[in-house]
C-alpha cells in the first residue's frame, strides 16, 4: 500500500506549502475561521496578515531560540531557491517581520491566501544556511538542526539514526533511537525476519499472503492517496530537446484515454487488492465534496477514440498504428522498477494499447530516478504514480496551475510536471486560493477539475489504501497516525517491546540527498524519513484529515484580512 510519489510534492519546507498543507479551507477545521473580516479578493499592498506567537521556550537543538528570523528564512528559501519545488503561497507574502518581539512573527500577504495553514510547515533554521535565498547546495548529506523531539545523529545511504533532541521543549518526548533503513527490495522478508519493526508497503495482489505471519499485523485504511496515470504535455508542447510531446495534442490525449477499458483494468489490477474498490472518477482527488459528478471514469470506446484521433488529423498507418504526418509516436511510460502493481499494469495495458494503435514502451527506472529525476525533469510521456494528498485541495495549485510548469523562465519552480496549461482551470485554482468562503471555494475547485476532465489530462484510477505492517512482538502503539498525510509522525510514542533501545522502520524509498526545498524532497518518503522528523512547523495534519496548531505556537495564529 502505499506510497510512492509524493503528493505532488512535498518539499518539506515548501512543503510547507504543499505537503502539509495544502490545506486550507477545506473542512471547517482548516478554513479561515479566524479571519476577522469578510472574504473576497483583496487589492492593495497588504490583503492579509497572519500573526504567529512562538512559545518562549521553543529552541533549536543547540539551545538557540526559534524566532522570526527562521520564519523569514523559510519564506525566502522556498520562494527564491533555484529549483524550489513549490512557491505557492510564499509568492503572496510581502514581508515576514517581527511583532512585539522576535518571538512574534507577522506575515503580510499581498493577496488573500485561504490555505495558509500549509505555510511554514517545516521551518529552516537560519543559522544553518549561508544564504536563505539559495539553499540549493545545503543539506546534501546531513541536516544538522532540529526543532522537534528527534535530532539526526547520522545519515547515509544505508540508514538514518535519530536520537532524542535534549533541547526539545514540547510535550512529544522521545526516548531510545529511531532508525530508518532502506528496504527497497526485501522489506517484507526483513520484517518477517525481525530485522525491522515496521514497514509501510504499497499493496499489490498477493502481498497479504506474503505478509502472513503470526507476529506481523497489517493495518489498512483509506486516506488521501490516489493513483493515476498522467500524460506529459511538455513545456509548450515540447520536450527538453525541442521535440513534440504527443500528449500536447488534445485529440491524441482523448483518443488515448478512450482506448483504455478502465473497468477491465480495474478488475485486473485493483480488485485483487481491494475486492470492494471502485474506479476513481474525481481526477487528482479522492471522493468527497470537491469531486464533481459525472466526470472521468471509463470512457472506453475504440470508435470514439478513432473519431477523436481522425478529427485531430491522425490516421492509422499500414501497421495499424496511429500516425500523424506519417510518424508513429513512441509513448514512453515510466514507472519505478520493482513496483509489482505498476509492472503488472504495464504488462496488461501495453499489448492492448498496441492493438489499439499506440506504440507504448516502458521507460522505467528506480524510485530515486523516477521521482527525483524524470518526474521533476518532465522526462516521460506517461507516468503512473500515487499522490499522497493532504486533506485540503490547495495542493492542486502548485501541481496543476499553468504557471507552475517548471521552466528556465521561472527558474524551474513549480510541480506541474504534466505541463498542463488551461487558463480557465488556472484562474479557478488561483481564485480558490484567495476564496475564504468554503462553498465558493469548493465550486472553484470543481470547476478546475471539470476542465481536467474535458482536457483528458490524466487517467484517475484508484483511491489507494494506506497500510502499515509491523511486528507485534517488537513494537507497539504504532497505529495512531497511519492514515495521516504525514504518516507515522508519532514515532515518539511508539513502544520498543523487545528492549533493544530502538524502533526500526523499513523505508520503501530512500532520499539521495536531504535538501528540503529542491527535488531531493520530491517524495513522500523524504517527508516521512527526514522532513517531518526534524523540522518544526506551525501546523501539522491529523489522522482524521485536519490541521492542528503545533506546540511551536502559543495558540492559533491571528489572521486579519483587509
Amino acid at each position: 500500500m502505499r506510497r510512492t510519489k509524493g503528493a505532488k510534492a512535498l518539499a518539506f519546507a515548501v512543503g510547507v506549502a504543499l505537503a502539509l498543507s495544502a490545506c486550507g479551507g477545506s473542512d471547517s477545521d482548516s478554513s479561515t475561521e479566524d479571519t476577522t473580516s469578510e472574504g473576497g479578493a483583496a487589492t492593495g499592498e497588504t490583503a492579509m496578515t497572519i500573526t504567529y506567537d512562538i512559545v518562549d521556550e521553543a529552541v533549536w537543538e543547540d539551545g538557540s531560540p526559534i524566532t522570526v528570523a527562521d520564519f523569514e528564512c523559510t519564506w525566502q528559501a522556498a520562494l527564491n531557491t533555484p529549483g524550489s519545488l513549490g512557491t505557492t503561497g510564499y509568492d503572496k507574502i510581502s514581508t515576514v517581520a517581527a511583532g512585539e518581539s522576535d518571538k512574534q512573527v507577522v506575515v503580510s500577504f499581498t493577496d488573500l491566501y485561504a490555505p495558509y495553514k500549509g505555510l511554514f510547515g517545516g521551518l529552516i533554521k537560519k543559522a544553518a544556511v549561508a544564504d536563505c535565498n539559495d539553499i540549493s547546495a545545503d543539506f546534501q548529506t546531513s541536516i544538522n538542526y532540529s526543532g522537534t523531539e528527534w535530532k539526526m545523529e547520522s545519515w547515509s545511504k544505508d540508514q538514518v539514526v535519530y536520537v532524542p533532541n535534549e533541547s526539545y521543549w514540547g510535550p512529544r518526548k522521545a526516548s531510545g533511537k529511531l532508525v530508518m533503513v532502506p528496504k527497497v527490495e526485501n522489506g517484507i522478508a526483513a520484517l518477517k525476519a525481525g530485522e525491522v519493526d515496521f514497514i509501510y508497503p504499497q499493496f499489490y495482489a498477493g502481498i497479504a499472503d506474503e505478509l502472513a505471519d503470526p507476529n506481523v499485523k497489517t493495518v489498512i485504511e483509506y486516506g488521501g492517496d490516489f493513483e493515476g496515470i498522467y500524460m506529459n504535455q511538455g513545456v509548450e508542447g515540447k520536450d527538453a530537446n525541442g521535440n513534440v510531446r504527443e500528449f500536447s495534442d488534445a485529440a491524441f490525449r482523448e483518443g488515448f484515454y478512450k482506448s483504455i477499458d478502465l473497468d477491465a483494468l480495474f478488475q485486473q489490477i485493483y480488485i485483487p487488492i481491494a475486492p470492494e474498490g471502485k474506479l476513481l472518477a474525481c481526477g487528482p482527488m479522492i471522493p468527497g465534496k470537491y469531486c464533481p459528478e459525472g466526470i472521468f471514469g471509463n470512457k472506453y470506446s475504440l470508435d470514439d477514440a478513432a473519431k477523436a484521433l481522425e478529427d485531430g488529423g491522425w490516421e492509422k498507418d499500414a501497421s495499424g498504428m496511429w500516425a500523424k504526418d506519417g510518424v508513429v509516436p513512441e509513448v514512453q511510460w515510466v514507472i519505478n522498477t520493482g513496483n509489482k502493481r505498476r509492472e503488472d499494469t504495464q504488462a496488461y495495458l501495453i499489448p492492448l494499447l498496441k492493438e489499439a494503435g499506440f506504440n507504448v514502451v516502458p521507460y522505467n527506472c528506480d524510485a530515486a530516478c523516477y521521482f527525483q529525476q524524470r518526474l521533476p525533469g518532465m522526462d516521460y510521456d506517461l507516468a503512473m504514480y500515487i499522490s499522497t494528498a493532504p486533506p485540503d485541495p490547495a495542493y492542486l495549485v502548485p501541481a496543476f496551475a499553468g504557471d507552475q510548469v517548471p521552466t528556465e523562465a521561472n527558474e524551474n519552480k513549480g510541480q506541474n510536471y504534466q505541463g498542463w496549461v488551461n487558463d480557465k482551470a488556472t484562474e479557478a485554482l488561483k481564485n480558490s486560493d484567495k476564496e475564504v468562503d468554503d462553498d465558493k471555494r469548493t465550486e472553484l475547485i470543481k470547476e478546475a477539475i471539470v476542465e481536467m476532465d474535458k482536457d483528458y489530462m490524466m487517467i484517475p484510477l484508484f483511491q489507494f489504501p494506506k497500510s502499515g505492517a509491523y511486528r507485534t512482538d517488537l513494537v507497539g502503539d504504532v497505529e495512531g497516525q497511519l492514515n495521516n498525510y504525514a504518516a507515522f509522525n508519532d514515532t515518539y510514542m511508539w513502544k520498543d517491546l523487545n528492549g533493544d533501545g530502538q524502533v526500526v522502520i523499513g523505508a520503501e524509498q530512500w532520499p539521495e540527498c536531504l535538501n528540503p526545498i529542491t527535488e531531493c524532497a520530491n517524495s513522500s518518503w523524504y517527508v516521512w524519513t527526514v522532513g517531518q522528523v526534524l523540522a518544526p512547523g506551525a501546523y501539522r495534519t491529523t489522522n482524521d484529515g485536519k490541521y492542528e496548531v503545533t506546540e511551536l505556537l502559543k495558540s492559533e495564529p491571528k489572521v486579519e484580512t483587509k
Partner: protein
Amino acid sequence: MKRYVARRLLWLIPTLLLVTFLVYVALRLGTDPVESYKRANARASKKKIQQYIELNGLYDGAFGYVRGYFKWLGGFLTGDWAPSIKGRTPVWPNLKDALANSLRLGVTASILGIFVGNLFGVLAALRPGRLRDTAVNTGALIGLAIPPFVSALLLQLLFSIYWQKWFGYSLFPTSGVYPPGHQGFDLPLMLKHMALPVVVVAIQTIASYSRYMRSSLLDVLNSDYLRTARSKGISERQVLLKHSLRNALIPVTTLIFLDIGAIVGGLIITEGLFEYPGMGRFFLVAYGNGDFPQLMPFMVIIVGSVVVFNLLADIVYARLDPRIKLV
C-alpha cells in the same frame, strides 16, 4: 625476475594511462555525462551545468577529449575529485566503503571457496570413478547449476525467516553489513551479516575449483614423470604432496589471481540480493545515474586491480614452475 617485475611495473604506467583514457572516452560517449547531469539535476541552472562541465573537464571536440582527460587525471592524482552528480556527495568515502565491503565479502568467500574447492578436487582426483569422486562431481554440478538468486533465497528463508518463526530469532540476517542502528566496527556482527552472502558466493567457487583441481590433478597424476617417480620407489604421499600438487596448482593459481582481481569489481548479483553495499551496487547506481565523477574512479580501480593481479599471476606462475623464465 626482478628485472622482469620492474619492467612490468614500468609498463603499468602507460598501460593504465591508455586504458583509463579509453575508459574515459567510452564513458563520455556511452553515458553522455552532461546529459546525465541534466537528467539527475533537472532544475539545475545553466551556470551550474557549466560549472559541472568545467569541474570534470567535459570539453567538446577531439582535442577537448584529450584536454578533458588530462584535466580529470590531474584532479584524480591530486585527490581533487569532483563530487557525485546526485547530491554533490564526495565520491571517495562511498567508493572506499564499497570497496572495503566487496573485498571483505569477496576475499572471504574466495578463500573459503578456493580452499574447500581445491580440497574436494584433490579428494576426487585421488579416487577417480569411485564414490567420493562421484559425490564431489555431483555436488559440483548441483552447485554450479543453482544460480545465486536461488541459493540466496533458500538461505534467507531457512536461516532468517523460518528460523525466526521456529525459534523466535533469526540466525543470520537477510541484508546489510550491520544491523539497523549499529554504528562503528564490530567484527562478530559483521561476520554474522556476511555469513549468507559468503556462502552463496562460496557455493559457486567451491563447485568451480573442485572441478578445476580434479581435472588438473588427474592430468598430473597420469603423467610420465610421476610414473617414473613411483618406479623409483617414492612414497605415494611424497608423489602427491611434493610432485603432483605443486604442478596441479599451476593453472589453478592463475585462475585464483584472476578471480581475486575480478572481485574488486563487486559481486553484483549477490550484493543486490542481500542489499550489500559493495562495488557491484555502487556501479549499478552510478551507471544508472550516468554519474561520471563516480564511474571514472570506479573504473580506474577495476582496471588497476586487473592489471596488478595479472602481474601477480605471472609472477606466481613462474615461481611455481621453474621451467618458466621471466626475463
